[in-house]
């Protein structure tokens, strides 16, 4: 029973972090058909900015977190203006933007390597203490991460379902041309989506680094897992992504306990490949009718 509680507690925390990292990716893919390979680097940047805010500027942790999110939103916006916007005008957008964001990710990652050095740093944003469930000590840090994730996910859901902006985003991802003809400013939707995705990446970067450590390459692993979550859920399906993130988080915690850390990623990938052979568009992805 204690083992079960342990697995659920750490699995939910993992899942919550993946969910926050994934929703941004999924939103961007849904509306722009853009696979943002710089997502991991933005995530790392968020972690470092929060660290710099607390450590060097002496900001209140909440303020530093908000500042990091805001700055990463700006980075997302810059990626839109600098790379996505000019590429949208040319043919082969999906391939080109994919390669361009690989380049952007590498630039960001190496700038951070220059700026903060290659050594892991602890994230100062930490919540001390723990609660006891049965015989298991659950750190408050984990509960804090869960709380932040729930708040953020609710906020994203609210914006998507209840506001004009959200309706425009959903319309664009359903059918770009139709949305444009109905007067949706598609360009503005793209900019908003990339900014939101940047901010969400920053928050997940702070959360991930608060239970691991900060290092310039820390973004790669969560990004890959966020991608896997996206793929399992069906690219662009935001709600499916949240569910898939939590399920995969629990699975990862379970395999880590049963098979050891070394095999957890491989097992995850195997499950994903099996799921994709069974449903090539992901679990919640609609099979799209391709018109030739």
């Amino acid at each position: 029973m204690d083992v079960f509680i342990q697995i659920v507690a750490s699995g939910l925390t993992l899942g919550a972090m993946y969910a926050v990292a994934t929703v941004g990716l999924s939103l961007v893919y849904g509306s722009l058909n853009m696979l943002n390979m710089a997502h991991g680097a933005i995530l790392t940047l968020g972690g470092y900015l929060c660290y710099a805010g607390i450590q060097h500027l002496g900001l209140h942790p909440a303020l530093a977190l908000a500042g990091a999110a805001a700055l990463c939103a700006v980075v997302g916006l810059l990626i839109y203006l600098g790379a996505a916007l000019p590429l949208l005008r040319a043919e082969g957008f999906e391939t080109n933007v994919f390669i361009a964001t690989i380049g952007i990710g590498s630039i960001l990652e190496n700038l951070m390597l220059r700026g903060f050095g290659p050594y892991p740093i602890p994230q100062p944003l930490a919540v001390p203490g723990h609660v006891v469930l049965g015989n298991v000590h659950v750190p408050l840090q984990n509960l804090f991460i869960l709380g932040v994730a729930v708040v953020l996910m609710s906020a994203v859901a609210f914006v998507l379902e209840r506001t004009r902006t959200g309706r425009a985003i959903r319309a664009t991802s359903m059918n770009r041309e139709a949305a444009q003809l109905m007067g949706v400013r598609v360009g503005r939707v793209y900019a908003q989506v990339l900014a939101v995705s940047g901010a969400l990446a920053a928050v997940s970067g702070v959360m991930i680094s608060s239970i691991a450590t900060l290092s310039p390459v820390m973004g790669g692993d969560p990004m890959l897992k966020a991608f896997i979550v996206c793929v399992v859920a069906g690219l662009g399906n935001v709600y499916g992504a949240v569910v898939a993130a939590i399920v995969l988080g629990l699975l990862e915690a379970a395999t880590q306990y049963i098979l050891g850390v070394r095999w957890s990623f491989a097992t995850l990938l195997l499950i994903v490949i099996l799921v994709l052979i069974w449903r090539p568009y992901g679990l919640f992805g609609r099979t799209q009718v391709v018109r030739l």
Partner: protein
Amino acid sequence: MTPVKRDILIGLVLVAAACAVPFLFPGRYVVTQATLFFVWAVVVVQWNLVLGVGGIFSLAQMALFATGAYATAMMGFYWKVPMLAAIPLAGVVTVAAGMLIGLACLRLRGPYVALLTLAIAQVLYVLIVNDTACFTTTGGCMPLFGGVRGIGQFGDLGFRALMPKTWHIAHYFVALGLLVVAVAMSIVIIRGPLGLAFRALRDNPGYAVSRGISRFRYQLWIFAVSAFLTGIAGGFYAVHFRVVGPTVFSFQLLLFLIAMIVVGGLGTIWGPLLGAAVLMLADEGVKELSDYRNIGLGLLLVLFIILQPGGLVRLFSRRPKRAADAKTG
């Protein structure tokens, strides 16, 4: 002049020039760097077939390269297979691995393929690096795949013993031979039926499919065919450096190679070759600035994709439109 004749002519001129290099610049450094250039050129020419011609978003090319390298090294280390047999066998092993990856990925749509292939490469890397259990203890503890330190001492092509002073020139010509085969294959594929099938699928997918051209089957073909020479290049790389380690999976290397394709021209015959040459030379030029190397590579990638999407070969092309058409989205 037909395109094929023109390609053969360009190829012959380049081969003649390449044959002269070791005699004009006999220094070991130039020849070794040129050998490395040939190896990367083989890989990018094959990768370009997958990415630019087949329209498959595969990031597994370095994983296939590693498969070839590891297969060669392990056959030599565990079973003492002579390298001349091990390298072609490694090519076959790589084709098998490529088929497996292809079967798992190619039914999916573009971006899904990119993510899965990247994830597969990452998993292989993690599994190899985190392996610490001793598989063999002859000459110290070594995990099955060599772990972080990699595998060494598996023999070589025999040139080192045969001509101790000039073996690097022999390796140079072996690598050149590999590149010639790779480029010839690329010409045959791009100008031949396979290339025609992909062009048909791109220009009018509905008509192509109704005429019985299966995208999945042709993509699997091109994936498997390009895996073979990639694996052989990996095997040669292992023999040349006498050690294989997990560094072949590094993302920086992937970035370097993908930048070669993009800078040269995606989907063209000579583009990847030109890109590989330009980037190797540029890399040589900025050696002192090595800290900024990856930033520069990233910038180069972004700038080329945005400002010159057809790559450098487009500057030489008489019909600028074709180069842009040749890439598939």
